[in-house]
């Protein structure tokens, strides 16, 4: 019971810490998406006149927004979780507490904030008629859950590794940027050469982002398979569940 109370307190602190000493405070959760969408519409629509297949204008923004926000939730969770143990090394060396919370708390914080942002984007898209309600929404939700599953598992595996090798957190931003480029966020896979488009399916995040985006925009059930990324998420979570406790129990030996 106490452990849950502690986790909630740590979570509340993590959320507050993100916006501590900012003037707008939690309003940033709402401000960030609105500002980014404004920038997107200026750069992609006004300046570049971008088009993805048949999508032009506001549809392009909707396309970009859904992909980018889902990715943000994933990448933010991985990045914050990975650095968590190294950042709390003094706490780990001084106080006995369930160490897995130290990783899960910033991950949950990232998930909560990015999910609120994403929800806001979806509401805006719905209000402006860019999104269509339909059976695809259920699959979109499943895709989002799988995406977060992969993110949480990666954070649990990378966080202890980062205590042993700080190179992990130094390398992570580059790896995540490269990964993002290999994920159809700023482009539509349909516009690529077929061979390359096939290759991108090896990235388990690709079908997740596509399912989520198409599901919400068109309300239709898309063809992108969720089974493989689902198995990847499950496999990684199982691995994390088996390996991380051993790591975490001895982490003090390496601090």
């Amino acid at each position, binding site marked *: *019971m*106490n452990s849950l*109370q*502690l986790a909630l*307190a740590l979570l509340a*602190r993590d959320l507050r*810490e993100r916006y*501590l*000493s900012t003037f707008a405070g939690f309003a940033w959760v709402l401000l960030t998406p609105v500002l980014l969408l404004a920038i997107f519409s200026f750069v992609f629509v006004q300046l570049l006149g971008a088009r993805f297949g048949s999508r032009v204008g506001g549809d392009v923004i909707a396309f970009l927004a859904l992909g980018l926000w889902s990715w943000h939730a994933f990448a933010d969770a991985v990045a914050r979780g990975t650095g968590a143990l190294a950042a709390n090394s*003094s*706490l*780990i*060396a*001084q*106080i*006995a*507490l369930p160490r897995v919370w130290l990783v899960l708390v910033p991950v949950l914080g990232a998930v909560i904030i990015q999910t609120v942002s994403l929800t806001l984007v979806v509401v805006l898209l719905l209000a402006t008629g860019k999104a269509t309600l339909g059976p695809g929404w259920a699959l979109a939700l499943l895709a989002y859950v799988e995406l977060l599953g992969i993110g949480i598992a990666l954070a649990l595996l990378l966080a202890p590794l980062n205590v*042993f090798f700080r190179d992990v957190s130094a390398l992570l931003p580059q790896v995540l940027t490269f990964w993002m480029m290999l994920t159809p966020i700023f482009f539509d896979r349909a516009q690529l050469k077929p061979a390359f488009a096939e290759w991108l399916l090896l990235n388990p995040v690709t079908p997740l982002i596509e399912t989520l985006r198409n599901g919400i925009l068109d309300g239709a059930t898309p063809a992108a398979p969720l089974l493989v990324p689902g198995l990847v998420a499950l496999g990684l979570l199982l691995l994390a569940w088996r*390996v991380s406790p*051993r*790591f975490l*129990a*001895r982490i*003090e*030996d*390496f601090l």
Partner: protein
Amino acid sequence: MNDEVLLELSGVGKRYPRVHRRRDRWSSILDAIAGRPYRLSTSVLSDIGFTLKRGESLGLIGENGAGKSTLLRMICGVAEPSEGRIMRRGSVAPLLELGAGFHPDYSGRDNIRMNALLLGMPGADFEAKVQQIIDFAEIGAYIDEPVKHYSSGMKVRLGFAVVASARPDLLITDEVLAVGDESFQKKCVAWIEGYLRDGGTLLLVSHGMYHVQKLCKHALWLNGGRIEAYGDVFDVTQRYLAYQEAKSARRRAEERAHAQSGDYAVASVAINGESKDVPTVMPMRATLDVDATLYSADGRAPVFAVGIKRQDGTPVYGISSELDAIEPLRQSEHDFRFSIRYPDLALLPGTYTVALHAMDPEAIRLFDTVERSLVVTGRSREVGLVQLPHRWHTP
């Protein structure tokens, strides 16, 4: 006191992996992942076993590096024992580093809430105690300021106050009595005494035998990662102090031998005829005789300097054979004897140190120093160090 065991250790050992070379680090990490013992490791503690029942108090003593802190960390659950078993029952509050987990950007009030949760105190219970904590820590209105504006003393006080409010079943402290100002230390000791009177259980690590003897009934002496002695606090601390004394005597003898193989040294000393290193006790206004034999490697007569200082190091009076142009008595090719008498010593009652120095014949370099304790007794309400000759003019 009942017989409930709060803490039981059996065959506990700790090995830390070797991680400095890159190859060793890899090997240790693979061992950690596989959950097997480290192949490359350094043993810090081995075969530690004891039990602590409710209401008992145990002092953990030993030199730096003996493994005391590692043992505490394992007992607190911060470090994992490499072998053996640790059984804990009831709530445990560790005072390893006071204020660990304080966040500099948050107010004292936010931090004590968080600290309490980190220490496993239930929130509801705790809210009622917040004011008590603020009062105990003597923080006052600062409680709503960010902790980064606190002095280190304030942080320590706040950290102790949180633990004090928790009244854990088992209190574990590591040298906490060494931090903070003196008045707060006294308050902490008083609080721990009260806690023990009320049936609390204490595991205390301290270098100060005074605190260990004052607060603990039992003591455990760790030496080189093993238990050297375990039992009644006075037996164990006395053995430990005797060991320390013998060790420093050995070191002094080595230094003496080293000095004698070199240039000039104090070879032997007698204060009022006593040549052993024991305090010389004498009444006020009595006679003090200091005899010393100085060794000279090159056979030239060294200079002998002797000084009296207060225990805090304040010099009272110093003189040398060179200043008074005194020639020593040559006893052999290398040994020179000096003898000085202070008749009617005017030191006021108190404890002093007599420092004897061997210098080169030019009286430029100091080569060796031996110190002896001097206790002047008497009933005097005069103030200061010495009785100065004086005369009152009366009408």
